[in-house]
């Protein structure tokens, strides 16, 4: 599996994402500076967490205009995989690869805590290692994770099984407790919680590792 992690000037979970990839594949992913414009022969693009441009204007807005994002779009359009974590999810909604927006948390504060998610669809390349409807624990850390989408699009998401992760207790006001969604073609996933922080390295929880392992198997 050939993986690229995109690095924006304010990305700060890029290294954590790379470590997670390394842990499951044994190979360091390619770290791609956002001004580079090449994503040749890459299977999976990871848009990592952080504050790509300080979250100034709107989270993900300025990053969405970066040269690399044209390549990411082409990569996705070609049916290859894209994983957006936290800020990466925000970028994906800003460029329209995923529907909806991520508004400020309903509590209007940054929230960092471990959290239970329900796996709503384990029939995707990202989630096939999980049991359907299982409860997993993935930490979260963000200020703008309050997912909002138009009603018709919401029913579409729900009907198509594009909602893959749901919060068991809603931390941010997100509509229908949505924590992560895929696009219709199921090759792009955006999620607010951080699977790369649940790799069994700092505590016993390795529920995040399953996601990366699923991807690896799907791409083998």
């Amino acid at each position, binding site marked *: 599996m050939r993986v690229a992690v995109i690095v924006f000037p304010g990305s700060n979970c890029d290294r954590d994402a790379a470590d997670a990839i390394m842990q499951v594949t044994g190979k360091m992913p390619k770290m791609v500076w956002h001004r580079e414009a090449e994503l040749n022969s890459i299977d999976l693009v990871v848009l990592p967490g952080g504050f790509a441009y300080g979250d100034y*204007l*709107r989270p993900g*807005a*300025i990053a969405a*205009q970066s040269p690399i994002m044209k390549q990411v779009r082409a990569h996705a359009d070609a049916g290859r995989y894209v994983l957006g974590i936290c800020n990466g999810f925000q970028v994906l909604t*800003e460029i329209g690869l995923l529907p*909806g*927006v991520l*508004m*400020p*948390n*309903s509590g*209007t504060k940054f929230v960092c805590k471990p959290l239970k998610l329900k796996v709503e669809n384990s029939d995707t390349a990202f989630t096939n290692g999980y049991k359907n409807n299982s409860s997993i624990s993935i930490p979260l850390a963000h200020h703008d994770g*309050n997912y*909002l989408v*138009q009603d018709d699009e919401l029913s579409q998401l729900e009907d198509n099984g594009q909602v893959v992760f749901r919060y068991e207790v809603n931390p941010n*006001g997100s509509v229908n407790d949505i924590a992560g969604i895929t696009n219709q073609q199921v090759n792009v996933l955006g999620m607010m919680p951080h699977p790369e922080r649940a790799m069994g390295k700092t505590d016993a929880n390795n529920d995040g590792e399953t996601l990366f392992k699923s991807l690896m198997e799907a791409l083998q």
Partner: protein
Amino acid sequence: MKAIVKVQLKPGVLDPQGSAITGALQALGYDEVLDVRQGKIIELDLQGTDHVLAKQRVSEMCGELLANTVIERFSVDIID
């Protein structure tokens, strides 16, 4: 030349920050406050003097970057 851009949430879009402000003002005793909505005002210093062109260019900037048109609407005023 300056452009004054107002970016506001479309009607009907929930505004978490606005609701928080409403609550805080009411708690401070400002009972006359019924609802609050928060938007952005972005002031651009522009080179050039052509107002018509400027308005068109700044509207493009809004579509491309300054506003997220999924949930926001914008208005542009050009002043000297």
